[in-house]
């Protein structure tokens, strides 16, 4: 079932606000702040809340009140209201409770914060506002949707390495965690996270079919699958699950993927679209993580744009075979993790205007690209390992971007050489200010 609200927070922003909230204050027992959030919808009535900025409450704006953890003055509240009016973004009051696990609101929070949210709603009635509450290792959120009475507990995703997913009152379906003892080394809670994550896969051919099969074996139970193509005979050399009967019947690739998934688990929540994801973008927005297994640079660019806009980690795979002169064919491929806030595929030099232009010039004349099952399998497996690492953090801290280069002739997967020369600057192409539904600015003549 889709949650009524999803809150996504980029990890660098989360770490920044958590560090600020942990600073001691001269008179207050705890600190508070406000998170500015963009919005969008994600299928049905699901409200997306996308954190894009943080404002600490000034030290001088705390009141000396020994009866509460922190009490802020009217200037702090007016400042938050002014930002709502200026930015047209929602504002979320944020503070931190001690302890571990999913935090819950104190009685005072329940009494005081709704009044504050009402003030925010008065100046920004068209956007959601709410509360973020952090513990030592988790985060909860309550969202007041525009026009709604009362708040809904949101699903929260901290987007970065590692991903953190939480949703008060929601746990994995009965039996969903059974049968995974051989992968218990992934850590306590890892299987629950895997069972709750919603994963989108765009492209269900040679690469995507491997990814889907591995994910369901792994224990992923929530999928959104996109492919407008049908199976033909030329797919049978590499597409997992496709049969000669599928080729004869020209079965939709989404049907084959559905059959593979449901043969392994009957407990899946599966949404498929036999067509372009661009025609059902709201389904994509509801995903916690997206895999792309597409043939074109242009397709990758569009998918990365959408994932960046809605704060979704995007894992791209692809391969090609080149032949120059009389030399043996060279097989190469890549696995890239495009993490919101981190370097994008343009920053990594994988996408270039020159490459996109060349592809557009060759459109319709390039013919079918070489694809083989073993390289698709290597790349898909590598991509799934990146996903598992992201969701479970089982190998420990990792701060480097993921751009893996596959050499099919040598049989190696190594960090791409360009990572050595990556500038240590924020991605200039997808600033956090651009997240959420696009905001067009009027032009004055």
């Amino acid at each position, binding site marked *: 079932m889709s949650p009524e609200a999803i809150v996504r927070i980029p990890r660098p922003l989360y770490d920044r606000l958590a560090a600020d909230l942990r600073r001691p204050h001269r008179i207050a027992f705890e600190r508070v702040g406000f998170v500015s959030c963009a919005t969008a919808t994600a299928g049905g009535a699901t409200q997306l809340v996308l954190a894009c900025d943080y404002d600490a409450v000034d030290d001088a704006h705390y009141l000396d009140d020994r009866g509460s953890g922190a009490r802020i003055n009217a200037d702090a509240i007016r400042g938050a209201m002014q930002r709502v009016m200026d930015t047209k973004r929602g504002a979320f009051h944020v503070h931190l409770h001690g302890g571990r696990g999913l935090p819950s609101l104190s009685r005072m929070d329940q009494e005081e914060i709704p009044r504050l949210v009402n003030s925010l709603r008065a100046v920004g009635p068209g956007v959601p506002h709410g509360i973020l509450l952090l513990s030592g290792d988790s985060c909860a959120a309550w969202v007041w949707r525009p026009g709604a009475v009362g708040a809904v507990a949101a699903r929260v995703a901290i987007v970065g390495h590692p991903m953190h997913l939480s949703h008060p009152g929601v746990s994995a379906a009965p039996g969903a965690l059974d049968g995974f003892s051989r992968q218990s080394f992934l850590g306590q809670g890892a299987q629950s996270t895997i069972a709750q994550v919603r994963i989108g896969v765009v492209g269900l051919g040679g690469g995507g079919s491997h990814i889907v099969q591995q994910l369901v074996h792994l224990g992923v139970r929530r999928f959104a699958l996109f492919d407008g193509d049908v199976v033909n005979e030329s797919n049978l050399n590499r597409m997992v699950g496709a049969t000669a009967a599928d080729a004869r019947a020209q079965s939709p690739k989404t049907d084959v993927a559905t059959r593979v998934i449901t043969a392994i688990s009957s407990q899946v929540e599966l949404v498929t679209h036999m067509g372009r994801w661009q025609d059902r973008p709201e389904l994509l927005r509801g995903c916690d993580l997206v895999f792309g297994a597409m043939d074109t640079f242009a397709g990758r660019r569009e998918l990365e*744009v959408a994932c960046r806009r809605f704060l979704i980690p995007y894992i791209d795979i692809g391969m090609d075979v080149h032949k120059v002169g009389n030399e043996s064919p060279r097989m190469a491929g890549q696995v890239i993790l495009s993490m919101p806030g981190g370097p994008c595929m343009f920053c990594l030099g994988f996408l270039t205007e020159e490459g996109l232009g060349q592809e557009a*010039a060759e459109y319709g004349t390039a013919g079918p690209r070489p694809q083989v099952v073993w390289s698709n399998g290597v790349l898909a497996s590598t991509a799934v390992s990146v996903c598992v690492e992201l969701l479970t953090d089982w190998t420990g801290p990792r701060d480097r971007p993921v751009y893996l280069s596959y050499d099919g002739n040598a049989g190696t997967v190594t960090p791409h050489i360009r990572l050595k020369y990556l500038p240590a600057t924020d991605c200039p192409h997808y600033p956090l200010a*651009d997240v959420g539904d*696009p905001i067009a600015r009027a*032009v004055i003549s």
Partner: protein
Amino acid sequence: MSQPDDQVRELARLFPGVQQADEGGVTYFLIPALSLPAGCTPDRVDALLCPSARDGYPTRLFLAEQVRSRSWGTARILERNWYMVSWRIREGLRLAQMVLAHLDAFK
């Protein structure tokens, strides 16, 4: 990429209601209900001007609807699906001139 103010104002004078928005480091201009050359169906359609290089073209004009059957492609920009035609205009034009030059594709 920002555009010269005088060109942006000129664009707004010629195409009332024009808005601008950024995506992927590119500034686009959204022109509501752009009038198309005589004989086109529909005769008005929302358009999106990309005044910088994209897909090997120095500039592009995207339309919210397919206007006549020829070599069309699609693109998703600013959370809308757009149609585009393979049409190259000369470089060095002002923003408003770009729009008019792209409309020659539909004459």
